[in-house]
């Protein structure tokens, strides 16, 4: 179990993480979601005792990371891909880590095989691809067979096969009763892996919610209507109390009235309808809606999120 209580990190005037509190429970994959620059990595570094919080506290099973008796056997972390000396082999990197916590060398070989680096284990890691670096980082995280695992963007740089492998790995670890905390900036990825998500924006907690609840919340539906007599229909719908938005392509997005009511209204005016289609927002859109106020770096043009779905 990981607990953050009022976790805060300021870098000078910049507030990277602000009063962040959440709990990551064992036996589930908990996603840590937020746009780039929202403070996910900083939070993970504070949990791992690498960065000192300005205020607040992060504990693992009620203990500070610094006080763990066998850190590598209790917590495993993949914090950044290729955090390894380019001149050192994968085997040497894992060996030097294993030695700190008195983990036998046989365990290193087991993990090299498990993550699929057997053929390159003796090669210098500087020649590794990003994907191979991720696999090595995952091996390092699993080295001590820890109860608690943290992964910062573990699928970055992996091919589709590798991504599927990581998903199954995370789910498998959670099924064994471990605490699994995974960060990502992609809702779609989390929808496939996580049971629960902690959503942050600009360093602040937006929501901690189960994926099922989030799906239910996000099914805020609307109806897409196309009509050659758009303005007339819009007026009638608004008189009925519906909220109507005219989209760029001239179609109407109607909220507050379902397709039955809209169809009947259109017939009574009468207005010709070319399209009458109920729409359901995707998880991705729900996530965008939740975080749109807290995106650190906006693109010059807001991308059209419609049609992006998991």
């Amino acid at each position, binding site marked *: 179990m990981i607990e953050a209580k009022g976790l805060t990190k300021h870098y000078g005037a910049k507030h990277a993480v602000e009063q962040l509190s959440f709990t990551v429970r064992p036996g589930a994959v908990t996603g840590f979601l937020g746009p780039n620059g929202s403070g996910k990595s900083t939070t993970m570094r504070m949990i791992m*005792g690498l960065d000192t919080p300005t205020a607040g506290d992060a504990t693992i099973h009620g203990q500070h990371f610094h006080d763990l*008796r066998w850190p590598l056997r209790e917590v495993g*972390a993949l914090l950044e891909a*290729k*955090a390894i000396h380019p001149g050192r082999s994968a085997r040497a990197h894992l060996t030097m880590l294993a*030695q*700190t916590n008195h983990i036998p060398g046989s365990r290193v070989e087991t993990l090299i095989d498990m993550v*699929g680096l057997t053929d390159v284990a003796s090669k210098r890691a500087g020649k590794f691809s990003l994907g191979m670096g991720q696999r090595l980082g995952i091996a390092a995280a699993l080295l001590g067979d820890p109860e608690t695992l943290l992964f910062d963007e573990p699928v970055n740089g992996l091919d589709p096969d590798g991504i599927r*492998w990581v998903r199954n790995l995370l789910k498998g670890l959670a099924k064994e009763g471990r605490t699994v905390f995974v960060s990502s900036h992609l809702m779609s990825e989390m929808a496939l892996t996580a049971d629960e998500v902690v959503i942050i924006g600009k360093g602040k907690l937006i929501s901690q919610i189960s994926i099922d609840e989030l799906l239910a919340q996000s099914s805020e539906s609307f109806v897409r209507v196309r009509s050659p007599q758009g303005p007339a229909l819009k007026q009638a719908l608004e008189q009925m109390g519906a909220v109507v938005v005219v989209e760029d392509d001239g179609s109407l997005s109607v909220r507050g009235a379902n397709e039955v009511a809209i169809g009947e209204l259109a017939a009574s005016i009468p207005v010709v309808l070319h399209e009458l289609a109920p729409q359901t927002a995707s998880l991705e859109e729900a996530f965008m809606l939740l975080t749109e106020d807290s995106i650190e770096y906006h693109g010059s043009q807001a991308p059209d999120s419609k049609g992006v779905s998991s």
Partner: protein
Amino acid sequence: MTNSPTATLERVSHLPSGHYRFVDLLRSEWTKLRTVRSSWWTLGVTVLLGIGISALVTAETRAHWSSMGPGDKLSFDPVSTSLIGLFLCQFAIGTLGALVVSAEYSTGTIRATLSAAPRRPAVVVAKATVYGVVAFVVSEFVSFASFFLGQFLLSSPARHATLSSPGALRAVFGGGLFVAVLGLVAFGIATIIRHTAGSIIAFVGILLVLPLIVQALPSSLSLNIRRFLPDRIGIDILSATKAFPNAFSPWAGMLILCLYAFVLISVGTVLMVRRDA
């Protein structure tokens, strides 16, 4: 790999008693040191250059002995001449001392290290111990090898020394120790600066530039300050006879150098505990 990913993982039901130990950190640091090529390169350069330069200078001295003036012959110190290569060694050993620390930061390995062993002072002490022992063994090897090869090359009629000559054993053993402790000074600088280039520049600056600056001061002042500088402490140790007026005794000088290393590493450790990794 396409199998169930956790199939090969056996659950460890309980943690061993106690906690991670210092001796395990030593083992880990030794693995780190020997598994990167740069260590072997720097140590190889240390040995070859150190012994090579000493051999070259002593052989040249022997070749030109007959043409040397009587004054030169009288002031000739066969011990310090045969140890001349150590002056090059100190840069290679110092570079390695800086690298074992700074490379952890430049590569990000430090975060892996501290995720496995979060007690930072213990990590620094383990690292300094492993590096210090390696630097000491290699420097002493170079020092003794240089001495014996040098004395062999300084055959008659040139003056040569044996280990039982006055001050010789102290100079040879002390020379190796001097280079190793100087390496720990570089190590300490790197724990403070954390960048490879910056650390090496600071180290070289202390050895080469600082003496020039001090020399520019009024001589009464400069003499008093110069004896505290590492390069003077080194010359003092390597010479069988007193090298210059106002110098500390060789072992007092060595103690001062050890103090520098200790203070720098301590400051670096305190900073490391306070700073984010």
